[in-house]
């Protein structure tokens, strides 16, 4: 389908007709940009569904006692919310949408190395999602284990755990194949002259991410297979009644799921690293340091999984080893924050919506990261483990980090992707409301955790009431903000096109080509003779 058209006029990727037209054309496309958009649209659907579940949970928690649902529904809801947000939104997240769309462009390639495999990854993603969703309607009811599927509860509960776990397994494969594809692409398809140290930092982030996807995901895959075998065939691995060790399940789960949090955040950091120099009109501060820190996060992040298990009954030795390693993995994140800040120094800052999102990202990411330090420290984690504090931490860093970066990137690359311009005033207003709501929603949870409110609580004691009210109100404010942001973008998409090849005066390769990009991106493969951010 990618045969080079002979005509002078090169159709852009949106209007290009391959073998099929319309929807079929999209569903059979191997164009990395279209695949990026396929991910984008499907992901937005799941994200909004997850968001509505979040809102419903907050509504339930507005005061003690039953408000709008029973305990079983609530338990099913946070499980599905966690599964959706983690496996369907933030793990593919920035990498699958913007990585697919921009990685080949950023390194001066026509596509990824394996375009058909790329499409297959998307199909696996959709199939996985469907399987996860069927768990809601088939069998004995929605799974109610939490997204962590801890044994032995996940082996005992009557609910439809198998479907959910199978879905997650398939999603894992989708993620592995995407990572594999990106790594090979970066090894093979960099434009002439683009040495490794001339790659844009977003690409580097994806490179680190790819390796984590490749080396961590199979561990959780096999763990899920064992859970399935145990439930269906009765061959025992984790059930203590037959000598299994539930803590081993936790090890295996977190061997993946901790690195997975870096799968979520690394591409997000990469996107921010693209945005900051563009709007500071200045080359990035400490390119090499950022490259090294990306790889260091990927590497050290592999060995800190035990910090989720400080109270599980692990040996004391493991506990302090994991605590120490956890603190070490914070350093590369710190390096990035410092380099971003330093990039602003003596810049010529052009305050635009993507830049504002990036600044907000850094702020909430820091709060999330610092609360991570509280969790990494042994004595304090003992107190706040499995409380609302943890919930606040990961919403700050997952939603605040990856989520904010997702929207930052969307506002940054929107003109390139669609050749449309959104209304910046409304966008900024939406961001402002979103930001206020976000903090009002999650900050009280830090307090709740400190005074001892456990997580996954459908009901709570009156002593936790006040902060919960604040938090619920925050969720409404935030919903308003997000609604404004989304409506603004949808309206822009519907609006008329503009000639916006380089609206921000960016320096990376995507700004040298047309908006929307033509089918194979470049009329002629560029030859690169300088670093990525030469202003």
């Amino acid at each position: 389908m990618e045969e080079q058209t002979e005509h002078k006029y090169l159709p852009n990727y949106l209007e290009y007709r391959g073998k099929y037209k319309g929807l079929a054309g999209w569903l059979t496309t191997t164009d990395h940009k279209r695949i990026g958009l396929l991910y984008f649209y499907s992901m937005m659907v799941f994200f909004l569904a997850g968001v509505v579940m979040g809102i419903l949970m907050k509504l339930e928690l507005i005061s003690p006692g039953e408000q709008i649902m029973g305990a079983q529904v609530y338990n099913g809801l946070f499980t599905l919310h966690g599964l959706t947000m983690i496996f369907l939104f933030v793990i593919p997240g920035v990498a699958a949408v913007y990585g697919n769309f921009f990685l080949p462009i950023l390194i001066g390639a026509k596509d990824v190395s394996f375009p058909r495999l790329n499409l297959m990854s998307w199909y696996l993603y959709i199939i996985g999602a469907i399987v996860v969703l069927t768990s809601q309607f088939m069998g004995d009811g929605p799974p109610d284990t939490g997204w962590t599927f801890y044994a032995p509860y996940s082996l005992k509960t009557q609910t439809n755990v198998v479907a959910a776990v199978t879905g997650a397994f398939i999603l894992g494969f989708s993620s592995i194949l995407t990572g594999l594809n990106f790594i090979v692409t970066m090894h093979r398809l960099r434009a002439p002259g683009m040495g490794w140290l001339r790659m844009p930092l977003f690409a580097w982030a994806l490179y680190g991410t790819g390796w984590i996807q490749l080396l961590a995901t199979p561990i959780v895959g096999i763990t899920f297979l064992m859970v399935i075998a145990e439930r269906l065939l009765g061959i025992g691995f984790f059930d203590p009644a037959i000598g299994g060790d539930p803590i081993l399940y936790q090890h295996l789960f977190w061997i993946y799921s901790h690195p997975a949090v870096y799968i979520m955040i690394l591409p997000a950091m990469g996107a921010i690293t693209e945005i900051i120099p563009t709007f500071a009109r200045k080359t990035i501060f400490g390119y090499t340091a950022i490259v090294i820190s990306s790889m260091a996060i990927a590497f050290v992040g592999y060995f800190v999984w035990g910090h989720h298990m400080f109270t599980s009954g692990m040996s004391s030795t493991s506990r302090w080893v994991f605590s120490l390693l956890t603190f070490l993995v914070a350093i590369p994140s710190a390096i990035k924050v410092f380099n971003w800040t330093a990039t602003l120094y003596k810049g010529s800052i052009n305050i635009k919506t993507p830049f504002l999102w990036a600044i907000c990202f850094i702020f909430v990411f820091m709060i999330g990261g610092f609360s991570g330090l509280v969790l990494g420290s042994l004595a304090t984690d003992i107190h706040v483990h499995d409380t609302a504090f943890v919930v606040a931490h990961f919403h700050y860093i997952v939603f605040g980090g990856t989520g904010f970066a997702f929207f930052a990137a969307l506002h940054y690359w929107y003109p390139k992707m669609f050749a449309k311009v959104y209304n910046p005033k409304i966008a900024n207003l939406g961001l402002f409301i979103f930001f206020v709501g976000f903090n009002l929603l999650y900050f009280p949870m830090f307090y709740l955790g400190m005074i001892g409110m456990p997580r996954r609580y459908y009901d709570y004691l009156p002593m936790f009431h006040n902060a919960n009210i604040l938090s619920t109100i925050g969720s409404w404010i935030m919903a308003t903000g997000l609604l404004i942001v989304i409506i603004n973008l949808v309206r822009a998409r519907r609006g008329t096109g503009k000639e916006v090849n380089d609206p921000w005066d960016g320096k990376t390769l995507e700004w040298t080509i047309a908006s929307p990009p033509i089918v194979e991106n470049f009329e002629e493969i560029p030859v690169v003779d300088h670093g990525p951010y030469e202003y």
Partner: protein
Amino acid sequence: MSDEKIHISPYKSHIMVLLGLIVLTVITVLITSVEMGPYNTTAAMIIASIKGAIVLLYFMHLRFDQKIYGIMVAIVVAIFAAVIVVTFFDYLYR
């Protein structure tokens, strides 16, 4: 198109490698049938690792390919080994 220069291993070398692997297999079986306490497992694993290395280097061609593949394999094996070690910080000291 592959842009690497092609190294063709002669048939004979494959046969030699195979013989070597078979001999090592026989040795493992023999060794594990003598009583050596905990060293049995160690010996078996060392031999298995040697066999694995041979397969990687010759059958899987690492020895003749670009270095990058070898480096990657080494890193992957090292990470995996480290994961086992770190896991055992728990089980050894419980």
